[in-house]
């Protein structure tokens, strides 16, 4: 026997695999993917910054590509695979090499831009595992940081590149030092 369809006729069902888990929700067509993730799935690691596709705080991986989830409708993502910042560190708490590099190189201050940065860098380093500093700066064009002045984000990216290509151990020896030298102190 067919069940009565009680959905709002204006609602659409969106089914996505998010961080390895299948998720299905009813959405209005105008629901933006970033709010779908944050408010309907509770994944608040993806941030809303400028909400005008400039700052990159809402960057996620959609079918493996770094995109700005404030400029995508949830209905457009139906059937896709999504990875958010929540899926970067291992369940044990061990950081992703990019996150580890941010930790060691002081790549964040307030941390608001960091999830988007980490995901943009993940894309950058998959496209170009050994980028130059200039390529890193150009590659992070879609992500704004209002704290760091970018210097340490660029350093962290280059360090992450070395970690991921095996040139540098996952944990930098200096990071073991309980009192690291203050960055920027002269």
């Amino acid at each position: 026997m067919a069940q009565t369809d009680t959905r709002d006729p204006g609602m659409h069902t969106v089914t996505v695999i998010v961080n390895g888990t299948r998720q299905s929700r009813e959405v209005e067509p105008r629901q933006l993917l970033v709010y779908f993730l944050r408010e309907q799935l509770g994944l608040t690691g993806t941030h809303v910054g400028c909400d005008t596709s400039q700052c990159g705080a809402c960057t996620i991986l959609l079918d493996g590509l770094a995109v700005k989830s404030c400029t995508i409708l949830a209905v457009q993502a139906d059937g896709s695979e999504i990875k958010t910042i929540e899926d970067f560190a291992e369940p044990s708490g061990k950081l992703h090499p990019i996150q580890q590099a941010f930790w060691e190189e002081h790549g964040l201050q307030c941390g608001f831009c960091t999830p988007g940065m980490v995901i943009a860098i993940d894309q950058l380093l998959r496209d170009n595992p050994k980028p130059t500093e200039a390529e890193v700066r150009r590659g992070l064009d879609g992500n704004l940081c209002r704290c760091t002045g970018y210097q340490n984000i660029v350093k962290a990216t280059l360090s992450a590149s070395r970690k991921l290509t095996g040139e540098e151990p996952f944990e930098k020896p200096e990071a073991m030092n309980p009192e690291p030298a203050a960055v920027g102190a002269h």
Partner: protein
Amino acid sequence: MFPAKFDYKAASSLQEAVGLLDDPDAKVIAGGHSLLPLMKLRLAQPKLLVDISRIPDLAYIRVDGGQLAIGAMTTYRQIKQSQEVHERAPVLAEAAHEVGDPQVQARGTLAGSLAHADPAGDMPAVVLALGGSVRAVGSSGERDVDLDSFFIDMLTTALQEREIIREVRLNVVPAGAGAAYQKFDQPASHYALTGICAVVTLSGAGDIASARIGVTGVGPKAYRPTAVEQALAGKSPSEDSVREAVQTVADGIDVLGDIHASPEYRAHLARVLTRRAVLQAATRARG
């Protein structure tokens, strides 16, 4: 920011999409990176979005009849990574690299940019300089619109209400020619305050045999400054002669002015960047 309410239909074929455009308040959405920002600001309030991204086989780059045939869903990222583009019209990949940022390039499409016809979009200048056509599909079949007659006005093209771009067909850069894209951008949005694409062919003697130039960001629509193209023909590709030939690039244009750049400044940028683009294209033509 939320767009105003609308309904959404994902078309499974171009025919179905064209049929859905019978609704006069319907809009096509491909990557959505021009349309959604406008909808979030409520500058556009379509009642129905027709999503063409699920139609099979619309993302491709093929070499066809001496042209590059680029499908409606082909993104900037795919253009940047295309061997066919790098071999035959590398300026297109170079300009795609200048659009927005990597995340925007992963979603935005060439065809969407042309259909949207933003006066500050990068792609209109490049396709005008390369030359070619837009293959549109509508209720009465397909037609090719020459790019020279495609851009009508700000955000307005020769596409009819129920037409969708299915393919963009671009001439390749001919042997003995070089091409370059020079842009001065608004640093937050990366839209072009002024963008100039030049395709320059040199004669055996090393003079400019012909030049095609596309200008964006200057007027309400992208255009070819044909007087400049004519003035360049036969000139030596030297700094001074090119500077002189490009002086009229913004003449007769209703030059845009806003908080980022006055009309005078945009016209100045147009002259400077046209000179640079022509000289760079000529250098590349020499190989």
